[in-house]
């Protein structure tokens, strides 16, 4: 079965600092990969998704970016964090054979 590794689990960063959240998956090839964010008291917002290496689709304009340098690696980045970037970030994968997506354990980001 597929597994999702996401790190770091928690992160406290000052405003204006860079960000790199990493996600790697195992147990599957050519998955669809996603970054979601859950802001405090809100639902799950899709930020980016990728159907293959180097293919990134952005759902929400913002100062975040995503990259997929390898088939099973998905990275969320920012050059300069804003206070509003604080939240719970979730990496997820979807199999080409279905519509169900599976989530990693999440990364808590607090921008101070």
């Amino acid at each position, binding site marked *: 079965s597929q597994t999702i590794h996401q790190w770091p689990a928690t992160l406290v960063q000052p405003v204006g600092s860079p960000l790199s959240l990493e996600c790697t998956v195992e147990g599957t090839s050519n998955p669809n990969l996603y970054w979601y964010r859950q802001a405090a008291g809100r639902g799950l917002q*899709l930020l980016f998704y990728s159907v293959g290496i180097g293919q990134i689709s952005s*759902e929400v304009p913002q100062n975040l970016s995503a990259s997929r340098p390898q088939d099973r690696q998905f990275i969320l980045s920012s050059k300069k964090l804003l206070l509003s970037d604080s939240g719970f970030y979730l990496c997820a994968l979807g199999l080409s054979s279905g*519509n*169900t997506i*599976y989530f990693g354990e*999440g990364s808590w980001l607090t921008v101070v």
Partner: protein
Amino acid sequence: DQQVKQNSPSLSVQEGRISILNCDYTNSMFDYFLWYKKYPAEGPTFLISISSIKDKNEDGRFTVFLNKSAKHLSLHIVPSQPGDSAVYFCAASSLNDYKLSFGAGTTVTVRA
């Protein structure tokens, strides 16, 4: 534009009773629906799904009902247990789409 809506932000139910969570959607192209369960500081876990060719799917204590004409689905948990206390997210997609649209979530509290 919120295409999936969970209008009840919270639900409190006594242990052993039925929990009923509701979800409405607006996009008539949606034909696959899922429920996820999320504990604090963890990633959501897939619970149960239903495709539009069915109106009911059951898995143990969890049953999802779909009313396509009303664009409405519900999740029944019977009997409710303390471990069911969590946030439940409704999600929807069309079978040819890579993305899920999520509702804002309903926090369920099961009282002893």
